[in-house]
């Protein structure tokens, strides 16, 4: 087998024109407020997102999984231009965007919309559904009506919902309203930050299915952020795994979940509850390690996972691994940022 470093940017894709949104070397550091004592020391920062590359394509769902604090939401916010990146570029249809405010931001958010995690919090409790939708429509000069939007997210009959307040809706219905609002702008890319994690198990599926349906009907590019790797498998065409602000593995949904390459992904999968697992298969977990995620203020050198990694090598502590292509099972390109997939290591393992 030949293993080679994969180029950082878009893996060979169906067609370059399908790319809606692209991030190159996206980095975000949140500066920590200085105290008197640290006034003269170097400014420290939370390295929330570090050198993230990703591509969203028309009609495809890209899932991003990772544990809490790994920077998933920050990526979504960066992509929505709600926070300004420290470094890196965001390209919309190949053009670099600088949309920090004003008209340009409006123009940008017309094409890239975001759905938030908590439907209970993302709708203003004092406004009706109608207000939420018509505002969005007005801002983006859309001809569509609120009724159409509601129909599109399967809240029918729309009249029944229009004059309701958020608290009068169930969680799933609220999330649908939030999605409808995002659709009001007629976006090409939808950034969904854990859209179902606050919802009840029984209604999660409805929202996910709706998103999938929208992807198919409106040909949306969707970034689906989740910490539930099983739902990523269910829903996404492509899965990215984030760890401590970096993307450590990426590839087709099945490839990543069924043949996880990066030790972190394996840990994640082993930890996920799985009724099919025969009780007593705990050894699996033992094998993939444990521990806690690292501090993002002083992230570990080299591979950020190495302190927890059962396979850590000397090299992992010093050098950050690049994206390395993993033996593919045909389901699109599959890569991992792990020295285990370095040609030499693989060779040595042989």
């Amino acid at each position, binding site marked *: 087998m030949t293993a080679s470093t994969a180029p950082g940017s878009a893996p060979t894709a169906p067609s370059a024109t399908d790319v809606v949104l692209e991030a190159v070397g996206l980095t975000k550091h949140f500066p920590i407020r200085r105290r008197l004592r640290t006034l003269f020391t170097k400014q420290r920062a939370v390295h929330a997102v570090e050198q993230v590359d990703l591509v969203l394509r028309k009609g495809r769902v890209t899932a991003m999984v990772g544990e809490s604090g790994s920077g998933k939401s920050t990526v979504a916010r960066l992509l*929505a231009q*709600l926070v300004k990146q420290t470094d890196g570029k965001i390209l919309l249809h190949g053009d670099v965007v600088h949309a920090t405010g004003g008209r340009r931001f409006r123009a940008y958010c017309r094409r890239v919309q975001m759905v938030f995690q908590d439907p209970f919090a993302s709708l203003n*409790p004092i406004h009706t559904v109608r207000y939420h939708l018509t*505002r969005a429509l007005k801002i983006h000069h859309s001809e569509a009506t609120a009724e159409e939007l509601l129909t599109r997210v399967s809240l029918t009959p729309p009249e029944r919902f229009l004059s309701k307040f958020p608290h009068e809706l169930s969680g799933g219905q609220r999330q649908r309203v939030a999605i409808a609002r*995002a659709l009001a702008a007629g976006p090409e890319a939808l950034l969904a930050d854990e859209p179902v994690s606050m919802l009840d198990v029984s209604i999660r599926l409805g929202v996910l299915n709706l998103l999938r349906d929208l992807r198919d009907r409106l040909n949306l590019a969707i970034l689906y952020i989740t910490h539930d790797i099983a739902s990523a498998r269910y829903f996404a065409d492509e899965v990215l795994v984030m760890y401590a602000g970096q993307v450590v593995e990426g590839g087709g949904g099945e490839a990543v979940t069924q043949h996880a390459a990066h030790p972190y992904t394996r840990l994640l999968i082993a930890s996920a509850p799985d009724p099919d697992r025969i009780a007593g298969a705990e050894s699996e977990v033992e094998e993939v390690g444990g521990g806690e995620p690292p501090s993002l203020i002083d992230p570990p050198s080299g591979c950020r996972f190495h302190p927890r990694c059962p396979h850590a090598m000397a090299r992992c502590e010093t050098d950050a691994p690049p994206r390395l292509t993993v033996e593919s099972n045909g389901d699109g390109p599959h890569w991992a940022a792990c020295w285990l997939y370095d040609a030499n290591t693989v060779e040595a393992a042989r």
Partner: protein
Amino acid sequence: MALPTAEVMTAVPPAAPTPTRKRRRPRFLGNRKARIGMVLFGFFVLLAIFGPMLAPYDPGERGDQLLASPNGDHWFGTTHLGQDLFSQMLDGSRSVMLVGLIAGVVATVLGVLIGVTSGYLSGLGSESLSALSNVFLVIPALPLILIITLSLPDTNDMTIALVIGCTSWAWGARVLRAQTLSLRRRDYVEAARATGESTWRIIGFEILPNLTAVIAASFIGTVIFAVLSEITLAFIGVPGVSEWNWGAILFWAQSQQALAQGAWWWFVPPGLAIALLGTGLALLNFGIDEYVNPRLRSSAGTKVRGVKMRVGFTPVLSGKGDST
């Protein structure tokens, strides 16, 4: 000054208005305290509007009955000049309410402007506004007001109201800032931004309406403070306060040694009126507080049929208890 009461309570960011609660006005007035407060407050508002017209005498007019105790002619008795105290009380209510309300409005507007701005903005501007309000908090208010009013070349009800308003916005600003800080992190604010709403619209339409209860509470708190301050100023003889302001009545009573003369009727009505007005406003504020933070609701509503609610030991209703 009874102010801290209401404000210390709200200084602790009250549980944010949970989206699931109904936000209709009747709910708020369903609270008994709020209702009593509303009635008292309403009474004084009506008094302020119609009181001066209803006054049976000209409050300054001298009569024949000097220092008479309450009687048929003079319901609240008379002063040393034979002036009718009832008319003075009625006449004074307008100035008291006017100054209180104007000061409340001024302070609330300032508090909202400063509090919400410093809460919504970040960085130096926010910090300095917050520092400013803290400075105003720490500097003893009453002496400051006293000095300012005495420094003004010409004072009247309006200037006094303005001075009180301009010096007492800090509590409101502080509470509002805390609230805004927490609201700013709410997803719906972020969502509105992601939808493309402009900043002022976010502040005006997404954040402010959610602060209504807090604003109302701070308004009422300031009104209480303003009324007490104004009356205090009038009592110690700061000029410019309307002639028959309740504090001024007390000033006269005090300077004529009414209590030593046994003229209790000169002292008691203004004091009681102030206390009742203050109580009414405070109750109104409780109502708002309880509305904002349902945990504060007293157990009045739940303590029926002798069941005593107690944290940590859920009551077991007998009767049905043993049936299976």
